[in-house]
């Protein structure tokens, strides 16, 4: 353990490209916690020297059948890491991760919808509502009492 037992262990999940880059801008929020990362390209590990990093299948709505690879990968990671908090900037792998983390571990979960979704929540973001303890948009206009919360944006 890199951090004291009292600090919650975090699992950060982000797809490739913009999802990963947006998560990178939030990294100071996780400093000092025992944090592991999950994404879809092996070379992303180079950005996180000394951190635990896992690669999973890049499931999108075009290749839904990959869930049969992705779900066992995520279950294994969740059982190894046993995170107290799972945080994701999407997309589909993040949705599956917070759903499994909630069901298997009762973990606290945070969904941060991509800043690209300025007119409506993403489709995985809509589904994430059921599994997210904190359901966040990066656009104040989209937030509301019955909708997602706004805590800020990566830009």
């Amino acid at each position, binding site marked *: 353990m890199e951090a004291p037992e009292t600090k919650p262990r975090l699992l950060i999940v982000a797809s490739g*490209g913009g999802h990963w880059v947006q998560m990178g801008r939030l990294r100071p*929020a996780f400093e000092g916690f025992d944090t592991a990362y999950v994404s879809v390209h092996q070379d992303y590990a180079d950005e996180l020297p000394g951190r635990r990093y896992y690669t999973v299948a890049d499931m999108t709505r075009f290749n839904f059948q990959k869930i049969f690879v992705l779900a066992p990968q995520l279950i294994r990671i969740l059982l190894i890491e046993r995170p107290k908090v799972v945080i994701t900037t999407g997309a589909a792998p993040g949705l599956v991760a917070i759903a499994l983390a909630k069901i298997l571990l009762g973990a606290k979960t945070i969904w941060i919808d991509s*800043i690209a979704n300025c007119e409506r929540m993403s489709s995985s973001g809509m589904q994430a509502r059921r599994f997210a303890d904190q359901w966040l948009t990066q656009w104040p206009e989209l937030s509301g009492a019955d909708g997602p919360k706004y805590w800020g944006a990566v*830009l």
Partner: protein
Amino acid sequence: MIFVTIGSLLPFDRLVRVMDDLAPSFPQEQFFAQIAEGKYEPRNMPFARMLSRREFAEKIDQAKLIVAHAGMGSVISAMQQKKPIVILPRKYEQGEHTTDHQMATARWLHAKPGVYVAMEDADLRTTIDAVLAAPSAAAIPPTAPSEFIDKLRAYISDL
């Protein structure tokens, strides 16, 4: 060097083809393209299917201008490395993305310093010419505003 990138997920042959056609008309510029899974292979510029994160950062660093889809990975990477970026949004109706959100993204990014929007292919040439004539880039810090960081951190810490 002008770095053309269409991200890593979906093909965007329309942008690759337009830039490949335009490249010879910039004899003084070198080009490099990341084309992902596209069917169209450029003839007038070197390209890679997918660069590693390190290579991608190096290409942005070497470039005087980025030309990209309206994807946040490309846009934020350019802004963080203080390079001007011209974006052409993908269109849902042409099968270039799952929704039309890049059109909306392009509309709000229009107001950001260093981000130049071409809504249609035909606008790319004039937009690129304008940026090359008077390049200006955003200067953003490498991390999100502290308001957001602090709220996330406070929530996690209290668990």
